[in-house]
């Protein structure tokens, strides 16, 4: 026999049609207050989760090889980490790959519409990865204010400038958020390139498949005096593309191409979708782990 589902007050009440919903009353999305997740108890819980659960899981699942840590050796916290985005694995992967001085004081800019649409969901993400709600499509003053405050407070920030996971494997055009924050706060931006996470879980995939991955940190970029946020954003995008090139073809080749401004864009060829998929399948993204260069 089917049990009658429990209604109000066990579940949320329905809203009478006559009554307009007050827009300002939202407490999810960008309005979700994550301050609690940065207080000591939540931080302690997160540190335990990160080192006790996330790290072993990420290791087992993604077998990351981390490169370029030497480039940020002398970098003091806080910093903005700009990362390309293919998979849900990206965030835990980057977080666990960060040096200790960053790892436990880093927040993740997460899409307010996706991660913060329900209070329960928001609480989970805020606690486990210290996510903060960011508006994807536009620069909302609320998100910016929060990110600014965090940076000034000594919190590092992980930002995916593409604004979401890649739908097809090619990169998406960067948004200016990371550059904007960098200009506003003067904080350095560390380009980070992830490779292989798409194989574990790509957008729209169900379940995960273990595979090896590579995390490459680039040199920190600092905004020049009076530099425009857009140019900084463009630099970041280029830097990540160089790191990708470095992954695929080796450091020197990548450096040369970069010097000649010939680094292949991550966004892939323009054209019908099959061409893009075809181009991707030609092996720009290696499917095996044999072609590693330089050898570790």
């Amino acid at each position, binding site marked *: 026999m089917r049990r009658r589902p429990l209604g109000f007050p066990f579940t949320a009440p329905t*809203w009478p049609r006559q009554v307009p919903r007050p827009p300002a009353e939202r407490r999810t999305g960008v309005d979700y207050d994550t301050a609690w997740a940065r207080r000591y108890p939540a931080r302690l819980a997160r540190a335990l989760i990160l080192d006790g659960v996330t790290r072993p899981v990420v290791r087992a699942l993604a077998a990351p090889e981390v490169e370029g840590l030497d480039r940020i050796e002398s970098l003091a916290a806080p910093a903005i980490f700009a990362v390309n985005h293919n998979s849900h694995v990206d965030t835990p992967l980057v977080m666990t790959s960060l040096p200790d001085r960053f790892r436990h004081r880093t927040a993740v800019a997460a899409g307010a519409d996706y991660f913060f649409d329900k209070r329960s969901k928001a609480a989970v993400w805020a606690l486990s990865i210290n996510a903060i709600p960011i508006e994807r499509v536009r620069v909302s003053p609320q998100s910016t204010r929060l990110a600014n405050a965090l940076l000034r407070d000594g919190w590092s920030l992980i930002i995916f400038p593409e604004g979401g996971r890649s739908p097809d494997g090619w990169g998406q055009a960067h948004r200016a958020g990371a550059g904007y924050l960098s200009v506003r706060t003067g904080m350095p931006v560390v380009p980070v390139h992830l490779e292989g996470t798409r194989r574990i879980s790509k957008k729209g995939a169900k379940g995960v498949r273990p595979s090896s991955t590579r995390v490459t940190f680039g040199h920190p970029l600092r905004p020049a005096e009076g530099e425009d946020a857009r140019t900084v954003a463009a630099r970041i995008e280029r830097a990540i593309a160089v790191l990708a090139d470095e992954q695929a073809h080796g450091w020197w080749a990548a450096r040369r191409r970069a010097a000649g401004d010939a680094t292949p864009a991550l966004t892939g060829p323009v054209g019908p979708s099959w061409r893009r998929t075809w181009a991707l399948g030609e092996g720009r993204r290696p499917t095996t782990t044999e072609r590693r260069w330089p050898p570790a």
Partner: protein
Amino acid sequence: MSRPGFVLDVDRSTPPMLFWHGEKFRLERLPEGSRVVYPPEPVEALADPDAAIRHALLNPVGDSAPLPALLKAGMRLTICFDDVSLPLPPMRRPDVRQRVIEAVLDLAADAGVDDVVLIAALALHRRMTEAELRHALGDRVYDAFAPFGQLTQLDAEDPDAMLHLGTTDQGEDVEISKRAATSDLIVYVNINLVAMDGGHKSVATGLASYRSLKHHHNVATMLQSRSFMDQHRSELHSSNWRMGRHIAASGIKVFQIETTLNTDTFPEHFAFLQRREWEWGPKDRATFLAVSRSLDRTPARLARSIFHGIRSPHQMASVQAGEVEAVHALTTENLYRQQLVEVSGQTDVLTMGLPYISPYNVNSIMNPILVACLGLGYFFNLYRGKPLVREGGVLILRHPTPWAFHPVHHPSYIDFFEEVLAETTDPVKIEADFEERFATDPWYIHLYRTSYAYHGVHPFYMWYWCAHALSHLGGVIVVGGDVKAVRRMGFKPASTLQDALEMASDVVGRDPSITYLHAPPLLLADVR
């Protein structure tokens, strides 16, 4: 910014509605097409109440000098204040009365006034206990006056304490406290919870005796008070106004201080009680479930003591002082701003859930007569213009209506219920056949004067309060009440709201219009 009250039309997407049920709560799904009248949200409280009080005392309205100018060394000053029936529920300390009286006493001390007496303006209500007086006045005032007999409670049955001031032009006896009548100045401190309170009613009723009260506390007056929340259409008030003007004409000076409160009625842990159902968050729903489930399993005594322990967070929203009528006009305006809700058209069936408290059972038991009085006397009369329910319509109340009486507070109620209501429920007949005997019964008088009992005639007034509703309505149905108690009062018992609506349709026809008065917090329906 507080949102105004409004009328909700129930549709399929409307969640079930919260009904008070004495010391319990129930959720009821109302039929589609019903209307729900929601009270306005609490208005902004005064940021600095003490400064506001001082300002009011120094800048009186109407034809009155500032209070300091009225206070002189060697004068007789009497400060009267509302009793335990206001406000509801009792407010958190400091009570408004304490704030106001302390301010008045400060000025009196500055002026060198020595002869000061405080009188609790009980009329025929029960006397207040020490704890209640301390709560209302604060320990400073209590300790300064009570030990020396300067804090008194009106004893309307003490022939030596009352003074007959003659009659009004309509032959109404005016008899009030002798101490007050022989003072150089009466300062009356009001809490105006509803529009009925205050004005000339303060002195003319609060300080009066049975001899005087019976001229307006009677069935005929009640039938002509439509409603007594609307001063200009209320014979109750007309009579009080005549008496008040007679008192003023007798040379008695009254400095009236009236205060209004916002409707922030219930403390934070009962926040769901004054939140609209669709806005209940998980916390509200969890507290509702926890509270209502546990209350259903709580013995009545314990539940009562829990609820009567509630101290309401309501705060002073306005204060005005000076000449009685000018002050009261301002007060009424302020009250209307907080409580008025516009409702268009009357309804066939009016439903309401009655809470655990009425003005006459603070720290006591809400007996069946008080249930009737709260429903048919007070809530029914929360209208201006036309009654919410049409003539011949049906009123559906929700209250457990236990056959229980507080033996100390309500001795005459027991006899009224057992004897008078067993005989008849017709207010006119009750008034003619029984009132005199109860009013003069020496035992009730003894208890009223020496114990904490309401006067013998008080249950009659409760029933007269219902007279307008009883003559207006086609039927009264009580949902979830004690069957015998409900029948005794001439009402019909029903076990569920659905049943009650079915029963009501026998009177008002099929597909009646239904309106639910979502109170408390209080509201005043402005029926167009």
